[in-house]
Every structure is written in C-alpha cells, then in structure tokens.
C-alpha cells in the first residue's frame, strides 16, 4: 500500500475520532526527540513532526517559541531524517512532516521525496504552499506515493473547498478558525456547519485543528469530522513536563 493510503486508513476509524498530534522536532530538547516521537506515536493515530523555521508566519507564540528553540538546538530537516533513519523501533502510527516551504526547497524536492520514503515518512503539510503553487513538490511526492495534505479554512469559498478536497492526499486538514495556530479562544460557534460542509466535500478523512485544547472540543469536532489535530497544547504539555501520552489520552472522549 502507498504511504499516503496507509495514512488515510489510519485516520478513518470506526466508532472513535482519530487523533493527530503535532510537535516540533527537537523541542524542548534535542536529545529526547526519538523518545518523544515514540511516546507520541503510541498515543496518537498519526504524528506531524514540525520542521523548525525562522519565519513561521502562520503560527502563534507557542509554535514560534518551539521553532526558535529547536533551531538553537541545531535541529534541521537533514537532522530529522538522520534521526528517523537511526531509530531502533517501528513507528506504530504514520508520520508526516510539517514544514514551511523554504527548508524543503533548499533540500531539493527529489531528494526530499527519496529521503522521506527511506525514513518512513508518509507525507507533508506545507502551510505556506497553496495548491496553485504546489506543482513541483506534488510531482516529486506523487512519484513516491507520499501525501501532500491540503488545508481548507472557514474562509475558503465553496468551489475552492471542493477543489482542495478533491486534490488533497492522506486527509483534508480543516483549519477550525481564521487565524494562526495556538489560539485559546475555543471553537467558533459555527464550527459544526463548517465541518459538515468540509466532510460532505471530501472522500478522504477530515481532521480538524488549530486551537484544540480540551476533550469537550474533541467531542464537538468528532460529531462531523473524522479526527482532530492537536499541536500547541501538546507543546505546552511538553514544556510543563507532562507525559505526552497522558496528555493525548486525556483528550480522547
């Protein structure tokens, strides 16, 4: 099975919402990256590893902070691949890389796809790469069966929503609110209508994220979507020294 199809399968579960966990590689510590990954992988249904970038323009303060510390810790895309290649455990859940475009561009798209496949990465989420600009990266990933996940937002017009859902791979990332990651304002009132609209436009699993922090929010999202994505709240749990597994399990309804 292609990596991107494995990813879809892992997120479409009977009877319970899937949980996608995001954390920045090498944060809070570089040395514990694989330990954190292993634990997060065992508690989540898919994992997004954040590649740090100097200019995370779609991210709130938590991801910004983690990104800056990870860079200071010497984390790079190449380092992440090396770590993944050197691990001595199976990944119980599919892993994606979430990265701004420039680190991927600097790596070279062909090499990127090759290395991702070798190291067990299933796909990519690129927050500053709208579909219109994605041709060259998508071509390189398609050749290896890797997913390029499209994001949709409450601001996405209907026709565009249909288009993005039809070209997405792995799953559809439904951004719950217009804004940056890490909001603590909760879910917008009309989140149900929005998620229902995304769901009806998509044949892939729909996972919703941005500002998800509590079990109650997970429950509300699960009424319409296949899964939830948790990022900033997990990073904050890691900062507080909490076990990522415990934190993630506390979110499951």
């Amino acid at each position, binding site marked *: 099975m292609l990596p991107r199809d494995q990813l879809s399968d892992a997120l479409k579960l009977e009877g319970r919402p899937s949980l996608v966990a995001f954390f920045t590689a090498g944060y809070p510590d570089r040395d514990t990256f694989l330990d954190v990954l292993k634990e997060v992988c065992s508690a989540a249904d898919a994992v997004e590893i954040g590649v740090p970038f100097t*200019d995370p*323009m*779609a991210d709130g303060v938590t991801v910004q902070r983690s990104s800056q510390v990870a860079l200071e810790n010497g984390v790079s895309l190449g380092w992440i691949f090396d770590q993944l290649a050197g691990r001595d455990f199976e990944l119980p859940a599919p892993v994606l890389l979430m990265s701004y475009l420039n680190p991927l561009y600097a790596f070279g798209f062909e090499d990127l796809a090759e290395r991702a496949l070798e190291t067990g990465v299933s796909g990519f989420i690129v927050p*500053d790469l709208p579909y219109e600009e994605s041709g060259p990266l998508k071509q390189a990933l398609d050749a290896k069966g890797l997913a390029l996940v499209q994001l949709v937002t409450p601001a996405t017009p209907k026709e565009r929503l249909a288009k993005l859902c039809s070209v997405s791979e792995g799953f559809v990332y439904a951004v719950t609110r217009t804004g940056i990651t890490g909001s603590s304002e909760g879910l917008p009132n009309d989140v149900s209508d929005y998620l229902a609209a995304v769901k009806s436009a998509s044949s892939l699993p729909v996972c919703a994220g941005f500002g998800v922090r509590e079990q109650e929010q997970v429950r509300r999202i699960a009424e319409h979507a296949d899964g939830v994505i948790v990022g900033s709240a997990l990073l904050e749990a890691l900062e507080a020294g909490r076990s990522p597994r415990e934190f993630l399990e506390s979110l499951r309804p």
Partner: protein
Amino acid sequence: MTNEDHEALFESLLNGSLPDDEGRFGPFGGRYVPETLMPAIDRLTAGVHRYLPDAQFQQELQSELKSWVGRPTALTHAPRLSDRWGAEVWFKREDLAHTGAHKINNTIGQALLAKALGAQRIVAETGAGQHGVASAAACARVGLPCTVYMGEIDVARQAPNVDRMHRLGAEVVPVTSGDRTLRSAIDEAIRDWVSDPKGNYYLLGSAIGPHPYPYLVRELQAVIGREARTQLLERTGLPDAAFACVGGGSNAIGLFHGFLADRSTALFGVEAGGRGVELGQNSATLASGRPGVLHGTHTMLLYDDDGQIQETHSVSAGLDYPGVGPEHALLQLVGRVEYVTASDDEALAALDECCSLEGILPALESAHALAGAKQWAAANRGKRILVGMSGRGDKDMPILADYPVNRSKGSVDAAA
C-alpha cells in the same frame, strides 16, 4: 535559460504581460501564502485590476499625489558633487515628498484602494519607520485605523519615526520575536492579517510579498521614474546611468520602470554591503543570495544550507532585509539591471559628502545609491547620472550620532 529566453522574458516585461495571471515574473513571484489568505489575495487581485485602471480612482489618486503628497517632486542638479565626481549628477527628490520618502506614493494609493475595497482596518510593517509613518499619514487621510508592526531593534534605532507614527494616530507594536527587524515585522503583520483576512487590509511597504503586491507597489511607485524621465528630457537628456538603493526594492523598481526601454541608460540597484561579504554581515540579497521562498514570494534570498533565513546587517534599517522583490530577481536574471553593493562606511561617507556639497541630508538608504553612483562615476568619467534620492535623513539622526562628522577622509570638505 539561453540569451534568447532572457530577451523574450524581458520583452514580456516591457510589453506589460508580466506578471502573468499567476503573479509570476518569469521564474520568480507567485503567491506562497497560507490557505486562509488565498480568498483575500484573490479579492485584492480583483480589486487591483478593477480600481487601478478606473478613471475615478485615478483622478482621486492623482489629486492626492499633487495636493497632499506634493508631486511632482523636484529634479535637482548637483553641481558641486558633479565637479567632485567628474560627472553630471541629478537627484530625483523623493525626500521632498510628504513624510520624507517615496513610501508615501505607495501608501496613499493602497489606502485609497483599501477604502474602495471596504476594509475596516489597516495593518502594516515597517523597517526604517518611513513606511510606518507614510501608512499612518495615509490612514489618517482616508480615515482608517492603522496598526504598524516594527521590530524592537528598529524601534530603538529609528525612534523619531515611532513618535511620528503615534502622533499620526497609528498603533505601533514592537516585535520581539525572530530577528526583531523588518523581517519579523512582516511575519507579525501577516499573522495579524490572517486573523481577519476580510476586515484587515495589509498595506505592504515594498515591492515584495505575494502577488499582487509586487505589481501593485511597482505601479504606484512608477511615478518616480515617469516624472524623472520627463524632467530629464526637458532639462538635459536621458541619463547614461541611473542608481537606486534596494531594500525590498520599491523605490528602485519605481525609478527603473521609466527607463527599462531606454537601453542606453544603464540601471544599477545598490544593495547594502554592510560590514563585509560574509553571510550575516550584509543585506546584499541579489549580489550574494539564491532563489528561495519567503513572505509569499519566490525570489532571491539570503538563507543557509538548511533553508533557514539568514539574519542580515545594514547600518540602514530600510535595507536590512534578506529578500528582494521578484521583479528585481527577474531584471537581474535577464541582465537589464546590475546589482552592486555599498558598504556601511561608503554610504556614511556619501551621506556626509552630499550634506556638505549639496545641502541635502539623504536617508541612509538613499546614501547607498549615492555611494554606488560615486563608485561608477570614478570608473566612467563625464557621464550623466541620475540618483534616486529615496528619502531624507532626519530619521537617521540617532544613528548618525554614533558617526561624528569628519569621521572619514574626504567626507566633509566644503572648501574643496
């Protein structure tokens, strides 16, 4: 790409078919923004195509440019500098425009556009503070609230402009993340824009960012080159060479556009050479960068082998940026414009020389254009040279306090 490809690209630029519908200037440009912003970018693009050619919009804009900005700005002959350099030197005086720099041409145009598009609020970034001041002034003029993001390093080194923004009614938000200069201010302005892409209008201050900004800003700044060309033809003739400083590249693209078709006029963009050629010591994006993607556009950038954006240095806050407008990347690729550098010291010396010989205090940014012109004049005697005087140096007084007059040989020498 072959020479013919380059020539064909340049022809497309001249005949107006670039940027294309995807916002590309050949291999550069595009719209690399978060999905949340795509509908806003589409609305803005439609608005640009609707209002820029609209007779009523143009009438209002031209009227504001004339009676509020003070256009046309003067073309000034610089006789004593000409003697010193062995050249015929002319200045296009954007320093005389309202608020003291070319930035106002862009902000009044975009503020009128924002109003026409029904925006509730303006968000802007600033480096030197000139764009922030010009945004604050234009927003007051059209009656829209304005928030300006400014890196905290720039807040400290361009203090007079921070006070001016406050006076003009803008909220100034110091940015403490990232490199704490222009680059981080843009990151933060984009984050604000994303939070309400419908109500917010992002008033970008240079010819950078996602399409349609590089096009929109160029169209609004092209008045510089158009006026300069007409004025030069009235008074002397086409220049042999024209120089403009390049940060994001808005004053330069505005000056160059008037002369692109005049092949006898050599065009030079002058970037900040800072303290030296090593990565991190300068902001010479075109001179030493490589293609990459930042702030919504595919262009030349300064970044390391991991794709991380490089911190930059320039004594001039307005040039202290690791990217450059995509149209400049194209003009470099096709060979129509040559991009050179002037160091901090060369710019400071040129500033002093201009003060003492012509009675004009240029902005530190503009002093880079002067320094580039001076270098060229030394190797090309007797030529007619146009220098884009993008702004005045009043805002730089706190920085200049660290560089007392007479600090370098040949700077102040009124008797010469």
